Structure formats: C-alpha cells, structure tokens
C-alpha cells in the first residue's frame, strides 16, 4: 500500500510523452475511472456506500476485461479523521481512496461540493492512481453518489458545478457501446457512443423502468462534452462485495483549499441525533397497508390499527399512502399517512419476523424495503398482484372480510395460550 500526500492548489499540466493516439481515442481517453462518493457516520461507511463500491467493482472488472484496460474504482471520502476509513474502503472494492481530512468538512453542501468537484477535476491525483492514464486525463468517466438526503443534494450540486448529467434513484447499471440516433445529440445521424453507462430508474409507480444516458453532444451546432456520467444510487439494491482484507490499493491524502469566505457563509450550530417516533426495529411484527384500503379507507385503516394492536405490531405504509390520497379523519391521517412510516426505497428498510402486507401491490420500491422479512403474509383481492411473489402466504380476499376473521382468531388463540400457561 502506498500513501501519498498532495497539496493544493496544483495547476501543473502534463507533457505529451506517450505514443500518438487516434483523435477519437484521445477524446475518449480524457475520461477514466469510476469515482464513488462515500458517506460515513461514527467512523463507519453507510451501508449504501459499500453497496456502491460493490457495484462499481463488478462493473469495472467487466469493463477492464471487455475493453482490455486498467481503469479503477476510486473512493472519495471527506470529513474529520477519515484516514482510518480508507483501508476499509479498499477491502470493500476500491482500488484507490482519495481522502480529504478537515473538521470543516462536516457535510455542508457548499464546502463539500467544491472539494469533491476539485478532486474530480484534479489531474495530478491520476499520477498516483494510474500514471499510465495521466497524460490525457481530464475528468472521471463515471461518478456514483448515494440517493439519500445528503447524496441526493451533493450529487446535484457537484454535477451542476461540473456541468454534466445526473440520473437519480438508480437500481440497475450496465456499460455498453450504444448506437445513438438523436435529433439534438447526433443531429439525427447514427453515432456509436462507446462505454456508455445505462442508468435504470424505476418510476414512481414502480412499474416502469426508464433508462437514462448522459451523452456528449456530437452535433456540431451544439458540440459539448458531458462527463462524468453520474447517478445517485438507491440504498439497499446492490450488494457489497465480501470484505477482503487482502485487497490493497493506493491511498491519497488531498489537502483541500477551503476559502475563508465560504466558511463564513454557513456554520453548523448543533447536531442532534433523534429517535423517530416510529421505530420498526423494536417490533417483531410489522403490519403495513397500501392503496388496497381505498374502498373504505377510514374503516379499513381502523381495522389495520386493530390488527396491529392485537399482534403488538408497528404500522407501515407504502409510498402512495404518505401522499394522503384519501379523505379520512385527521386523527388517523396525521398518525398513519406520514412519511416516517413509509417502507421502501423512499422510506425505511425493515426485517421483522413477520410482515403482513395489506392491500399492497408490490411495486419494486416497496419490495426493496421489506424483502428481508423472515415471513411474509399478504392480503389482496388480486391474485396477480406482484406482492404474491414476495409472500410465504397469500390470502386472497377483501380486507373488510379477512382482517376481522384474523383478529378474532388471534384473540381466541391468545386466550387459549393464556389458559395453558395458567394450567
């Protein structure tokens, strides 16, 4: 493992010493590597950061095989005392880690954005990371962020600063050579875009997948390069690689240049950890509801509430319910139709012993939040609902009929158990 210190600013430009490349290859060779922006807390990476490294590792291994190249997975980590994190990031798939260590890097968007953006543009880092690509390097080829509160905003501002494209909430990635014919991008002519990142994004309904590409404008009238190709990645969809302490790589210290005037523009006064009023982890059972309650939302909500009470369960909801689509009494709506209760990619990921899905269709976003439950029972009128494929038991029937029967039976069996204990 090599450790290098680089100080900023550095405006050195590389000398052309390599053999000549064809002009097209030079254009393409300006962009190298996947840069992955890491988030961390209490000295540990967030799970999504390791998931992104895992996916970047798999993509890059295929990429290097396919294109006979040697491009890298580069982790970027900012914060106070982050040096001990760096090895861990290598163990989880990074080839190189660029870290910036300063107490001022405490997730203020303004300051972090400038540091990440300057790391992305910094050519001298490539001397340490991959000297063979130093000469032509200008920008990362790809860039990954987490689709969470911090990463979503950071990705937006960093890409606004780098003036390139960004796709959000991605759950599948493919790298391909694609022939594109586009009115604006190619002026209607077919052009092959090599090494293009196909970024798959499930839409809000969970039934459609949109593939987004970030492409240079090759149309002479609006000629412009758009790199890196960047995306934010939904937590919980990709797997990290197994931690491998034999993996090693380059760790580079990046001394950021943080202007005094930026520090004066924003200060963090306090930071307080809060416990959500809804704590799914405390419960062995979660009962959750979706749009299937729509026929009589008020009554059905009350039924779900009673069922949860009988089972000593916490109540979860699917994303559409948090948008308060039905008129029900304020006391129920303000308690249950709230974002804190959403299970899925826009909310919490849960893994109770028992998950009861009531009137939930099973959109991919919801499934991502509950698929690790030990045992799943779903109640739905529609036997073709996708939730069936995520269920151990599928009760076909109307909420109004099934839940009262369940409640009655649960109470009866609980009474029997109490009797037994007394005996």
């Amino acid at each position, binding site marked *: 493992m090599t450790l290098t210190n680089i100080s900023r600013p550095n405006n050195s430009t590389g000398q052309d010493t390599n053999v000549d490349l064809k002009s097209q290859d030079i254009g393409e060779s300006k962009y190298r590597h996947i840069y992955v922006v890491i988030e961390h807390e209490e000295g540990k990476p967030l799970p999504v950061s390791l998931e992104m490294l895992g996916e970047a590792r798999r993509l890059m291994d295929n990429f290097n095989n396919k294109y006979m190249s040697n491009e890298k997975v580069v982790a970027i980590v900012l914060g106070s005392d982050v040096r001990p994190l760096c090895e861990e990031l290598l163990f989880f798939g990074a080839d190189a880690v660029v870290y910036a260590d300063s107490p001022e890097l405490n997730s203020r968007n303004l300051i972090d954005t400038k540091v990440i953006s300057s790391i992305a543009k910094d050519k001298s880092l490539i001397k340490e990371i991959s000297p063979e690509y130093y000469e032509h390097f200008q920008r990362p080829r790809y860039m990954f962020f987490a689709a969470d509160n911090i990463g979503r905003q950071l990705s937006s501002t960093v890409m606004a600063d780098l003036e390139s494209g960004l796709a959000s909430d991605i759950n599948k990635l493919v790298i391909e050579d694609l022939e594109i014919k586009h009115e604006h991008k190619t002026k209607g002519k077919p052009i092959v875009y090599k090494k293009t990142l196909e970024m798959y994004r499930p839409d809000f*309904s969970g039934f459609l997948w949109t593939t*987004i590409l970030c492409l240079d404008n090759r149309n002479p009238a609006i000629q412009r390069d758009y790199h890196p190709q960047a995306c934010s990645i939904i937590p919980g969809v990709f797997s990290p690689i197994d931690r491998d302490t034999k993996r090693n790589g380059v760790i580079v210290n990046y001394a950021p240049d943080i202007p005094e005037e930026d520090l004066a523009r924003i200060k963090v006064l306090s930071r307080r950890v809060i416990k959500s009023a809804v704590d799914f982890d405390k419960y062995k059972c979660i009962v959750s509801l979706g749009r299937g309650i729509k026929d009589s939302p008020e009554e059905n909500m009350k039924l779900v509430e009673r069922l949860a009470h009988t089972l000593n369960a916490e109540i979860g909801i699917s994303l559409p319910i948090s948008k308060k689509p039905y008129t029900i009494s304020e006391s129920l709506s303000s308690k249950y139709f709230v974002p804190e209760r959403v299970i899925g990619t826009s909310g919490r990921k849960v893994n109770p012993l028992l998950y009861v899905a009531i009137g939930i269709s099973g959109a991919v976003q919801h499934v991502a939040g509950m698929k690790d439950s030990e045992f799943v029972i779903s109640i739905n009128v529609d036997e073709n609902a996708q939730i069936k494929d995520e269920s151990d038991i599928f009760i076909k029937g109307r909420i109004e009929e099934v839940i009262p029967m369940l409640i009655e039976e649960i109470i009866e069996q609980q009474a029997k158990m109490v009797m037994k204990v007394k005996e």
Partner: protein
Amino acid sequence: MVSLGVAVIVKLEPDFSEGNVSYNSDGTLNRAETKNILGPHSAIASRAAFYAKVNYGAEVSITTMGPPIADYALQQAQLISNADNLYLYSDRIFAGADTLATAEVLKSGIKVMQDQGRKVDIVFSGHRASDGETGQTGPQTAWKLGYTFLGNVISYNVDIENRKVRAKRFISLQGFYDVIEEVEASLPVFISVDPSYKADYNTITQRLSIMKNRKEASKKSQEFKKHLQVLNAEQLGVDVKFVGLPGSPTIVYKVEKIPKAKPSRKASVVNGSDLNQIRDIVMKMNQVISGMIIK
C-alpha cells in the same frame, strides 16, 4: 423598501389523490386522464414563503417553468402564500429539459426578477416533485445562482438586521439514525423545504397578520393574471444551447415495463373466507413471532 424578498419555485404536477389519479391497466400513470395541480411539495414550499410574509412582511414571488396551463400552479401557490408577483417561464424550446437545463431557466428567471429591482434573499423549492421525484432541480438552481443551499429544512427564522438565516435540517442516515442539524447561513440562501416543515405562529400579532394575509391572498388569486408575467426564452435572455433538449446532458434512452422479478418466495394461496385456513395461518403467525419458525 421591503426588508426581505423571497421567491418560490413551484411545479404543476399530476394529482395523485384518489379519485383524481388515473392509472392504465398495466399500472402506469394515465397522464391524459389525470388532473394537474400544484404539487404537494410545492405547496409546502409556498407555506414556507407565507411564513416570511407573515413574520417579516416579505415580498413574495412565485415562479415556475412550464406550458401556459402551469399558471394554475402559480395561482394556487399565490393563494397559499399571498404572493405579490407571479412568473411563468414558458417557451416551446424549454420542453424536454432535464434537471440541469431546467435549472438554467430557473436561474435566469431569478436574475430577471433581480434586474426588475426585486430583492431575492431566499429562494424556496419543494423537496422533490411527485412525478419526477429527482430532487435535483432545486440544488442545481441554487448552485447556478451561487446561493448557499440548505436542504431538508424543517423550520427557519431570519435575522433581518444581520442578514442571516437560522434553519433546522432533517437528515436521515441510512443504517444509523436521523439527525436534526441547526445551521446559520448568510443571505442569500436557497432552501429546499422538507415534507415535515412546520411554521410556528405563536404571538397574537402573527395570528392577526395571518388572517389579514389570507384575506388578501384570496382576493389576489381571484385576479391572479394581474400579477402574472409570462416570459419566453428571449425575454429571459437564456442561451438556447443551454436549455431544453439541446442543453440537457441526459436523454431518456428507453422506457420499458419492469420485468417481473423471479419470485423470491413461493406463496401458498389461501382463500380469505375459509375460517379453517385462517385458523392455520394464525397458528403459523404465532409460531413465527415467537421465533419457533426460522426459515
């Protein structure tokens, strides 16, 4: 001279409430049949601007980019915020813009407001749109404007004299916990308002001011066109290379139905009206909860 000027960026979105939203048989949104309204997150951002109106007597401007019918969103936002000015940025060449190209138009719009002599100390936007859900346009507009971006703001107050904002932000750290962070930033700032935003109106003066402003708002929004400016690309002074489709780094390459994943479990299907089967299920549930069955 007003002490504070604020702008709100809003969006006209499909109405996802039951009875208004229409889905195709394959589960996708039927855009033609679904009504459009002021997006719920835009409504929350408008409430945050109303707070500035009530507390600081701010001049409020609402802005949106969209087709001519998007003026409906402006009207609704005016009703919520008692806005003084409405701006619609509308031009066919803006169509199909991704977030970066949209941010370019919105930035130019704020600049035009400033050129007209308005103060824009705070720009508010919703957390994310219900239909696009990227949450990128707000921060990208902030960056292009050079405003300090504050995301997920749940409450804020302005120190008018010292030109500073104090705001609380909600940050969810996956796998750890949630955090409330309090920050202080110099004006101008760009605030994206969290869905759990709350305004505190405690004093009698504030409550009286609310009533007065609500009355004004309802009057103004009835004749909202009096307050409306519609600006096209030329009037905004945007470079057509940086807006709409030509100015968008990203394209939608394809849209497909998400293929059904391989079933991860094999469900046994039970008839919900069969009491005997329900009895068996409840026994199973009890075993699962008591930890007697671990798959």
